[in-house]
């Protein structure tokens, strides 16, 4: 399988994929976060047809369906692009006060300003977890926030900060 990547200056990036069944799929990922999905004309293979336009939130929804495991990578990329925003992975250790409690009980966002964007549990990923999701020892939380916020979160999750 070959995924071809072409830079579209001022617009974004175009990805092109020739599937094994012989179809050619084109995806334009725009800088603003929207996307266009196209299939190419059989007679004029340079021309995109059946254009499918996605708003940023729709593109996110589709990406979530197709690529939840890629989430952590995407947040690592995001933190590189936005100055002042960082991401971190925080394991819930055996002795953590939050093992066995819910995500909401960490009160991460209220107290540290950090957002927990995913829970990695072995090979599974829970993207956009909700406050009611349970935490288990061995889970890894993926969080984004300021560097001080992430430090506070780390201290809190390991139980070094009274809650």
């Amino acid at each position, binding site marked *: 399988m070959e995924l071809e990547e*072409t*830079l*579209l*200056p*001022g*617009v974004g990036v*175009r990805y092109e994929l020739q599937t094994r069944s012989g179809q050619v799929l*084109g*995806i*334009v990922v*725009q*800088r*603003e976060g929207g996307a*266009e999905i*196209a299939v190419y004309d*059989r*007679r*004029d*293979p*340079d*021309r*995109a047809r059946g*254009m499918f*336009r996605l708003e940023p939130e729709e593109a996110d929804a589709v990406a979530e369906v197709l690529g939840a495991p890629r989430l952590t990578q995407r947040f690592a990329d995001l933190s590189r*692009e*936005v*100055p*002042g925003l960082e991401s971190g992975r925080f394991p819930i250790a055996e002795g953590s006060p939050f093992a066995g409690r819910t995500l909401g009980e960490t009160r991460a966002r209220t107290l540290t300003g950090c957002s927990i964007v995913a829970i990695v549990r072995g090979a599974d990923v829970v993207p956009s977890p909700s406050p009611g999701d349970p935490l288990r020892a061995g889970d890894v939380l993926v969080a984004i926030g300021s560097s001080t916020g992430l430090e506070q979160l780390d201290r809190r999750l390991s139980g070094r900060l009274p809650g």
Partner: protein
Amino acid sequence: MDHVAALLVELGLLFLGLSLLGLAARRLGLSPVPFVLIAALALGDGGIVPLSTAEPFLTASAEIGVVLLLLTLGLEFSASELFSSFRRHAPSGVVDLVLNAPPGFAAGLLLGLPWQGALALAGVTWISSSGIVARLLGDLGRLANRETPAVLSVLVLEDLAMALFLPLLVVALAGGGPTAAAAGIALAVGAVLVVLLAARRHGHRLGRLLTHDDDEQVMLRLVGLTLLVAGLAQAMGASAAVGAFLVGLALPASFADRARAILGPLRDLFAALFFVAFGFATDPGAILPVLPAALALAAVTTATKIGTGWFAARRDGVAVPGRLRAGTALVARGEFSIVIAGLAVTTGLADVGPIATGYVLILAVTGPVLTRVVEPLSAHFLPAPSLR
């Protein structure tokens, strides 16, 4: 009416009028630039709205409009996009220059303009409107097409060339000899290269300096810095527009997205005032006599732009219909042709105004129409369908 009342009423009517024009343009699927130009020609003494009180404000706003247009142009393209376009499509950029600038230069000389005016007209015919073209490609659903990277790369290279062409033009318009012109170009090339390299290494620092949680803070810092650099560039005999472009280039891509979002409305407001001021300063009576010349020039440079797009798309292995789509998409000229003509007009070459206005009026409208029309027509150039 007292002064303040007159100023506010004039500006209010002006903006309401621009809003209606924008609606009409959008309804027709065209760029508002030609509509604003036509309306501005009708303004002034003896026009519907005399705008006598607002004139000093318009003049100052027009300067800010150019600065913001060039700043957002610099923000539009990251250094990596410039480098990769340059590596891959440099020959297309050269073909673009060689095909499209000489017709303007020749026409300028034939019209009896001094060589500096002819040089300005060369710039007018050379630079496609990245605003119109990029929007057109999105509207027509051509972003995923295979010829599109070539089209966008030509636009990027033109925009980079603007940063070199504008200082050259400023030096020429200032009446300097060949030595001064050479020094001016060397300075411009040096400045662009230094800024691009510095942006690669240290751009994030500048980004951090300007970044703040509060949008208002970001806007004030960014506009402040840009006007300062633009003013200093102007004071040093370069062009304010070039200084603004360099600020845009130097900002890192991560910050540029936010800056574009914050500056967008401000840019649109002042850019509209720039087009108004330009049309305002142009004598409508002077356009009619040069209209045949503008039409001929438009016809010639439509053909040369199609040639440019054809060449660029062929380099990417695109077939004939795609080459035609690429060529016709590039035909539209717009905001930057007017910026170039505006530079010439403010330095006293008023004769450049009417021909450039006529030319942009024609191509800002026919360019988008042409590329829409060519799409179904070009299907005839396809090979017979293969049975698969």
